[in-house]
């Protein structure tokens, strides 16, 4: 047996995946109806049948190098038509959760997917840090307010309460930290996924523009011919633009965005767009999940609620904060300011490098990896 190969199955794999949401995985009888009803599954990057087989057989290595779970947008056609109710759509979702954990070198992601207690614990801990930052040091936050005297209590003076130079430094530090974490995780994803393929530099360069376009537009999603894929894509696009806008405002343009007094400012308009987009899109997502409308929303893990839920609260407190500011309600403005950050910061810390939001980089990267791998194989 010259070509014989020993495969070491990972016997724990199936249990991990079942815990991550793929509870019906074992029911699959490998008929491949799922792969064939899926309009995004191609001969080169086929899913979900093959991944479910690898999961059933404990072929962890094959799953790790496979980026196709990120090519699935969970329209649910596969689950709807599955003859065994093995729920392939949810199996792909479970794989994405599992892979997020595998890419993350800190191990936090895995811990949080495995245990709700960990996820909530980390959220609360970060939240507490934020609150303490504003309340404890004598020369900062409320302490500062008392020093600022009755003027800042009587009328909104945000810069007295939370000086924008300091907040801006904090913002930038946080964004850099999360950015580094996310990028290193993405780099690991990249390394793992391409380790079995030799890819010439030219191929990498050739596909770079596609990577950017996909990242911005999620264009590939439009190839999905399922009933409500347009709705889902549009909602996602609204969310992404809102998210990107607020990110730029807070991280880059904070000095212009955080306005000091309670009058109207033209530069707030972008903030209004972002608030409306985030509020609307997250409420819409929560609504669909509650109504279990469409396959995509029939099964929800705690981490699925966390994403739109925290986003909604963040956007809502942001809007309320602004209302209070315009009404010149000093104390409510300050309290909401702290609450707003105490929700937004932990959400970002948990979701961006370790959780669901990592897909903002993983998805376009997966499309890129799939494209360069395909090119590399063709040129060989």
């Amino acid at each position: 047996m010259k070509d014989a190969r020993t495969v070491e199955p990972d016997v724990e794999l199936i249990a991990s995946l079942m815990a991550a949401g793929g509870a019906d995985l074992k029911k699959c009888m490998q008929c491949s109806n799922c792969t064939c009803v899926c309009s995004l599954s191609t001969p080169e990057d086929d899913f979900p049948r093959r991944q479910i087989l690898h999961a059933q057989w404990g072929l962890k290595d094959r799953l790790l190098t496979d980026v196709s779970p990120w090519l699935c947008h969970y329209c649910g056609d596969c689950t709807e038509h599955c003859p065994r109710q093995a729920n392939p759509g949810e199996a792909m979702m479970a794989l994405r959760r599992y892979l997020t954990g595998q890419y993350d070198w800190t191990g936090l992601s895995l811990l949080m997917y495995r245990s709700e207690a960990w996820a909530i614990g980390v959220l609360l801990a970060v939240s507490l840090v934020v609150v303490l930052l504003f309340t404890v040091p004598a020369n900062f936050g409320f302490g500062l307010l008392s020093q600022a005297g009755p003027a800042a209590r009587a009328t909104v003076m945000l810069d007295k309460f939370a000086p924008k130079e300091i907040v801006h430094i904090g913002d930038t530090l946080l964004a850099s930290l999360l950015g580094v974490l996310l990028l290193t995780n993405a780099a690991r994803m990249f390394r793992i996924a391409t380790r079995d393929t030799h890819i010439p530099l030219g191929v990498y360069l050739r596909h770079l523009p596609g990577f950017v376009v996909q990242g911005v537009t999620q264009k590939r999603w439009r190839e999905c011919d399922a009933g409500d894929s347009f709705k889902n894509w549009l909602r996602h696009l609204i969310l992404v633009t809102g998210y990107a806008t607020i990110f730029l405002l807070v991280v880059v343009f904070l000095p212009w965005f955080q306005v000091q007094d309670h009058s109207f400012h033209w530069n707030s308009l972008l903030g209004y767009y972002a608030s409306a987009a985030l509020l609307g899109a997250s409420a819409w997502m929560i609504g669909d999940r509650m109504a279990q409308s469409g396959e995509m929303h029939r099964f929800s893990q705690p981490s699925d609620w966390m994403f739109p839920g925290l986003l909604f609260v963040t956007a809502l407190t942001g809007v309320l904060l602004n209302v209070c500011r315009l009404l010149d309600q000093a104390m409510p403005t300050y309290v909401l300011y702290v609450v707003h950050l105490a929700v937004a910061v932990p959400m970002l810390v948990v979701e961006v490098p370790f959780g669901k939001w990592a897909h903002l980089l993983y998805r376009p990267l997966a499309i890129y990896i799939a494209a360069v791998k395909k090119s590399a194989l063709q040129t060989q």
Partner: protein
Amino acid sequence: MSANSPNPVLIIGGGIAGLTAAVELADTGVEVVLVEKSASLGGRVARLHQYFPKLCPPTCGLEMHYRRVRENAGITVLTLAEVTGVTGSAGDYEVEVRVRPRFVSEACTLCGDCERVCPAERPDEFNYGLGTTKAAYLPHGVAYPAAYAIDRAACPEGCKACEEACKYQAIRLNAQTEVRTVKASAIVAATGWKPYDAAKLEHLGFGQCRNVVTNVMLERMAAADGPTAGRILRPSDGKEPRTVAFVQCAGSRDENHLPYCSAVCCTASLKHAAYIRALYPETAITIFYIDVRTPGRLEEFGAKVQHDADVRMVKGKVARVEENPATGDLLVTAEDVLANRKSTEHFELVVLATGIVPETEGLPAALKPDECGFAGKNGSPGIYAAGCVCRPAEVSATVQDATGTALKALQCANRSVSHVR
């Protein structure tokens, strides 16, 4: 009921299961009443071109049974008849049977004059809607009783053409439905099966793509007395197909349709492949399957057909069938799972291997259906079920099942007259 002879055993359904139970019971001396809903005995088997595994014509088995029915005075056959009520208990049931008129008496000589003069047409249900028959029709080539029947629902107002044309005065268009009460010691329900409704398989194109047919339709096309006189022709253009795809598990083993395996479709499709390969040696066959299930002694038959290089077996369920409107050809999407290759291929004809659905309409209430809809074997002490209404099976297994059930019915009949319990 006299002390020595029990009431007759009543059998519902004159397919291969009901016929077998009837002749085996009658051979023991017990009287039998055989109630058949359609105009002829024979059931689904009469619609097969050939039986697997021996590929003999259905006339073989049926003729033998018919002869035994004919020769045994203890069997009363009621066609166009249905059971409408059962009262009483084991040994002493009273069964209400509604017998619709045939409008043609035993004097019929099969001369066919009535059919020739008949101006009206009706969908040919026997041929699964492939074509039509006249309102005056012969049920099929191996009909029992061998007599014409008239479908009055299809007759034009006031038309008496057939009555006037019949030289033997065999036709009485004013005959009426009759309700009879039959005494029975035991009841055997053998109402059989019907094919799964292919129109429910939206992605497989039946009813939308002209050249998508079902396995039972193919069976009729292959039959010499069928709608295409034994040739396999595409419905869209009457062309003999050069490439044929079989889609296995069209509805079966699918929780959205039939959660169970229909047991015969794999062997049936292999048989159909053999029909086509024998007729058209140029025609290539592809069979898309989840698993090839040819259990027991059918394994050998299956292996023989699969040995043919032009019968390609592809492991993978077909998810989509679409039509190229210009050519009528079909685009079949499936993954060859063993090669890990998803593809869309062209075929000139697609056959859906639709499964077996139990025919439980008109079944005595005592026979409670199981979670898949099949009748339980034993309802109450004197009411039994046999054949495909209990489980999907091929003819030989059906015959064995019916023979065993006949014994149960016989025991019940005998108990009703014996003092020894």
